[in-house]
């Protein structure tokens, strides 16, 4: 499964949700969906803007973890 490490990166860059949402151009509600991992997909354009604002690479925000079979 894909893990979203956006809050870790935000903490590193000391940026608030309000500021990040404003700079990316999405609503805080959508940013919250992204942060909590409830989102189903992310557009390349959004990812690009996040990377631009947080000065990082997509790999710093998104991570892959193998799901354990129950």
């Amino acid at each position, binding site marked *: 499964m894909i893990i979203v490490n956006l809050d870790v990166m935000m903490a590193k860059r000391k940026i608030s949700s309000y500021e990040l949402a404003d700079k990316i151009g*999405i609503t805080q509600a*959508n*940013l919250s*969906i*992204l942060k909590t991992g*409830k*989102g*189903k*997909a*992310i*557009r390349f354009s*959004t990812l690009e803007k996040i990377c631009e604002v947080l000065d990082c690479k997509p790999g710093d925000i998104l991570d892959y973890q193998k799901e354990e079979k129950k």
Partner: protein
Amino acid sequence: MFIIEIDKMGKLLKKIVWIGMLLAIPCIVGIPFILKHNSNMIYSMLIVYPNGCMMLKIAYEFYKMFDSLEKKQPFTIQNVNLLRKTGCLSYGMSVLWIIDLGILIFLIKNTYIDYIIILIFLSILFFGVGIALWTLSLLLQQATEYKEENDLTI
């Protein structure tokens, strides 16, 4: 081009279904009094009664569905379940018409071909409606899933 406003249409359909339900209730209640003098129809009445109740339930489910149209939120899992339920009720009605047909032929030994043809037609019709509603519920389910995916794409 004439564009139908979905909320206004929802309101109108709700009113139509509501009037239909109000008219149907006295009809169902009045069936025993209407058929009092026709002893051949007593068995059939046992089938007509649950069928009437099922029809009312279907109308009520549609009434709830038009409520979501009014709120401009038709793509919900509740509507999928409502359509599925109405589809099942329609299958049930079809089965009841077949039972009525059986009663008419084997118990009452009715030879009126008109009745038999009408009952065959009704059972096929409601089976078809059931299939249509079931298919629509699957389509709505797919559409709801797509919408949810689209809403959750950031």
